[in-house]
């Protein structure tokens, strides 16, 4: 080696290598393979290995795939929102109100359900939410509803409820960790400087907890987009998501290239969406800081966010007429990537760990 690594670097690399090689072989190689596959086509029983974008053009134009992808994103976004919003108070409660020696017990209680059979938990939600299940039974009994609710099972709502349950600890733990890191004297300082409890929360606690909240968002959003079991068991036809379609392509239709393409598209969509969202958040926070925060900052950040989202929204809905379905998505992706990259390059990493 020309430059030569230090001894420590060599030792470190040697020691990490078994795990790294394993991950390379079983993760990097397969991921690259499906990317490769996505450029091939299925020709009845054989695979046509000529490079083509046909799958991509189909994946981006076929309304069914588009609808499934959009629904997956929407469901994931709802799950993320529900999970994070309900997880925050729990994390806050454990961090601020539970006595220190009891905290570990609470965390343990919260993680236990997560470690029990995924399949059975989801199946039981089907039982709980069923037409004749305990939820409807109780509500009928209490006279809150006249007849059993039918909108809670075999649709997107059921998927959201079930996934929110499954991913609860993933949201609670990172938020809890970031809340625990907050030096309690900061809160006392805020009160000493004249803020009330509520404003102390909004001006000190919440901003300092934001890294945890964002980690929770990532850790919930990414895996839920690709969830398979929950939509199958409680989603009905209205709750089907992209992973179900990938399964159908690979197993039922034996179209592995198309399945691979959908998988790649799903990963790309999630990556671009998250990169866009997080980096634009950096931009909005930056804007808000530029005018000195406060109400003016909030307003400016809100306007900027509305403009950013508005452009994409408008393109998504009206773009087809001019650019065609694939073109529209391509342009959207380009705008999102360009925006994210320019922010990443131009703006230094700011608060909230982003």
């Amino acid at each position: 080696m020309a430059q030569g690594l230090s001894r420590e670097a060599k030792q470190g690399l040697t020691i990490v290598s078994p795990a790294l090689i394993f991950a390379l072989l079983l993760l990097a190689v397969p991921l690259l393979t499906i990317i490769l596959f996505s450029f091939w086509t299925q020709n009845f029983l054989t695979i046509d290995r000529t490079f083509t974008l046909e799958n991509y053009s189909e994946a981006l134009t076929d309304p069914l795939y588009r609808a499934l992808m959009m629904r997956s994103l929407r469901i994931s976004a709802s799950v993320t929102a529900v999970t994070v919003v309900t997880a925050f108070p729990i994390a806050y409660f454990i961090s601020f109100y539970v006595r220190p020696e009891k905290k570990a017990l609470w965390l343990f209680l919260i993680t236990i359900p997560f470690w029990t059979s995924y399949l059975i938990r989801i199946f039981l939600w089907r039982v709980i939410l069923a037409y004749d299940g305990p939820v409807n039974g109780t509500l009928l009994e209490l006279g809150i509803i006249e007849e059993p609710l039918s909108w809670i099972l075999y649709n997107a709502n059921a998927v959201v409820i079930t996934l929110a349950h499954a991913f609860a600890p993933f949201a609670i733990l990172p938020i809890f960790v970031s809340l625990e890191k907050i030096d309690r004297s900061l809160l006392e300082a805020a009160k000493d400087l004249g803020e009330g409890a509520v404003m102390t929360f909004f001006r000190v606690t919440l901003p300092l907890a934001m890294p945890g909240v964002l980690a929770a968002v990532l850790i919930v959003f990414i895996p839920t987009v690709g969830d398979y079991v929950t939509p199958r068991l409680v989603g009905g036809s209205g709750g089907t998501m992209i992973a179900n379609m990938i399964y159908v392509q690979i197993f039922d239709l034996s179209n592995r290239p198309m399945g691979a393409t959908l998988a790649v598209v799903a990963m790309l969509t999630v990556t671009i969406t998250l990169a866009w969202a997080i980096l634009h958040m950096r931009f909005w926070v930056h804007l808000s800081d530029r005018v000195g925060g406060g109400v003016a900052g909030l307003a400016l950040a809100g306007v900027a966010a509305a403009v950013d989202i508005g452009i994409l929204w408008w393109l998504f809905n009206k773009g087809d007429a001019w650019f065609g379905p694939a073109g529209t998505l391509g342009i959207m992706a380009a705008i999102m990537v360009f925006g994210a990259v320019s922010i990443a390059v131009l703006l230094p990493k700011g608060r909230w760990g982003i």
Partner: protein
Amino acid sequence: MRVRPLGVFAVLYLMFLYAPIILLPIFAFNDGTVIAFPLRGFTTGWFAELTQIPALHEATLNSLIIACSVAVLATCLGLFAARAATRYKFPLKGGIMGFIMLPLVLPEVIVAISLLVVLMQLGIETSIFTIILGHTLLCMPFAIAILQGSFSGLDQSLEEAAVDLGETRAGAFRLVILPLVTPGIIASLLICFIISLDEFIIAFFLSGNEPTLPVYLWGQLRFPARLPVVMALGTILVGLSIVLLIVADVFRRRGLRKMGQQDAGGFL
């Protein structure tokens, strides 16, 4: 004690989290073929029936073989990675560790189908062995997370002190590092065992004709008549998971106590 709205919310949330687990044994012991209220009466018949299903026993055996192998494999690989991550500086460390931890956030379906496509392409039959590989990939990040906790609690000068007092590097590892991380290793073994035992997607995609317990369960979910048996099986699985978890947590805490540290929270 004053009742806080937040406390009430926390209790309700716990009920939400535990709802499925509490219902499970209720239906498992319910003397009715339909999984619905009202309950009919108490029976242990469904559990008895479990002993009569050869396919189930086969699946159980498969699952146990897989879970044990995965626990050992993932923990060994995790030991290396966690040790490297806590003790050494090397180029691209963040990227390498991030990549190894990636399965933690990657949708399992993606991991599963990409593995499946490669295996099919290489002409390798899916089997217990392929599931072991897939599960190890999935469990490794958890093992690393747990073991990193054990390793990072170690003062680096402990190892140096052992060497300074006449031990070799290997001796220092055996006499000082290993005893201190043993609780972490046991916790990692148990957690990987639980994850592998419960994991469905990868097993479903890669099992071929050697189903694991969750894959067998999945097959049974289609038949309403089989559901009470499924409930009974689920009860056993959940019970087993909880027992193993408590054991794992006891070991983790013992490890912390050994080092005279404060308990900083649960797993992950």
